[in-house]
């Protein structure tokens, strides 16, 4: 029984492992840390617990649809998707691999832990193009709720910075 449960959970994790974030397709949902848990329920079907990044993030609907498609493709159509709010998502849950992918994609990854909640006093972002710290904030809100717009003063490139929450 236990082996079956583990096998089932592994299959679910594997089925959704490559689902990309709909707005930042360079990283996966697992990199982003929004998939909180996979549980095999008493009926043997299982459920996935997903938390939104921002309450109003329109990608939430797309994320659920994409996870559903991935489950269907893997023959796991009976797995339920459940949305949870608590504990609230934090950028600390973005994996190290996810941070490296963000940087390669041209987005400055969020700082960990202490940077949270003190953006105003927080140091400059590191330019994902040239690694310079000589950068300035252009706009606190960028192309999506989760990003701010910054500019590098050395290579002159504007770039997105993931906000710490």
């Amino acid at each position: 029984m236990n082996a079956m449960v583990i096998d089932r959970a592994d299959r679910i994790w594997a089925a959704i492992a490559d689902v990309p974030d709909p707005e930042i397709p360079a990283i996966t949902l697992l990199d982003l840390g929004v998939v909180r848990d996979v549980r095999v329920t008493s009926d043997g079907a299982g459920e996935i617990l997903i938390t939104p990044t921002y309450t109003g993030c329109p990608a939430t609907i797309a994320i659920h649809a994409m996870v559903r498609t991935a489950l269907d493709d893997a023959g796991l159509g009976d797995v339920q998707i459940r949305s949870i709010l608590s504990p609230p998502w934090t950028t600390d849950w973005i994996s190290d691999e996810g941070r490296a992918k963000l940087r390669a994609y041209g987005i400055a990854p969020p700082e960990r832990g202490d940077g949270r909640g003190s953006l105003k006093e927080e140091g400059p972002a590191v330019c994902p193009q040239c690694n310079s710290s000589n950068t300035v904030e252009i706009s606190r809100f960028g192309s999506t709720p989760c990003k701010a717009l910054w500019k590098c003063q050395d290579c002159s490139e504007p770039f997105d910075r993931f906000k710490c929450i």
Partner: protein
Amino acid sequence: MSDQHLQARVASIIALGDDALVLGQRIGEWCGHAPTLELDLSLANLGLDLIGQATLFLNYAGELEGQGRNGDALAFRRDVYDFRNCLLVEQPNGDFGRTIVRQLLFSAYQRLLFESLAKSADSRLAEIAAKAVKEVSYHERLAADWVVRLGDGTEESHNRAKDGLAWNWRFVDELFAVDPAEAELLTAGLMVDRNALRAPWDRIIGTVLSDATLQIPPPVRGVVGGRTGRHSEHLGHMLSEMQFLQRAYPGASW
């Protein structure tokens, strides 16, 4: 749970949702019209956060009520007298000065409110507030930065911020008014005593205004009524646009 108690709970959660919904809709009017592209993005994102909060609060209120109404039904199929938002959030945007001053006054209040609500005995409200407070901190910071920038800027920008402050100030008292129907909810630790938020709010606003070289306006007779459904004419105009589709084609979806 007695009927009266349930009604009071539902009403207080609807008020939280309506504040977010109405202000989110108002700020959305700036989309494509803001003074700069960056502000356009900021205001649209901010409105989006508020609509997200409204969805969570109103869906929850609908579940508790148990009459088969979800967040969409509450947003699109209630009449103006059934809305419970405060008067501040329904006021027309005016110029950018008036809009951003209103945002500071409201976001500072909302942050304090959600910080307390995150400790509510109602675990569902607590988790919504704990999530939303992170977003609202950003709103408050953005608004505070701009109020300082306008107030401590040119003579023109200073005057615009000052006028915006004078215009919005009459609606401040209502934010902190406690509905007598909520007394039982406060005792049970389900809802926040808004009255207790006034002192910390005054300190926050006082600091920002001082940085902005603006004066705290002299006391005015506060205008109230939104929490009991007595709204200014502006809300009806907004709803006639916002609710048009569901009124013309009830139940339409895509």
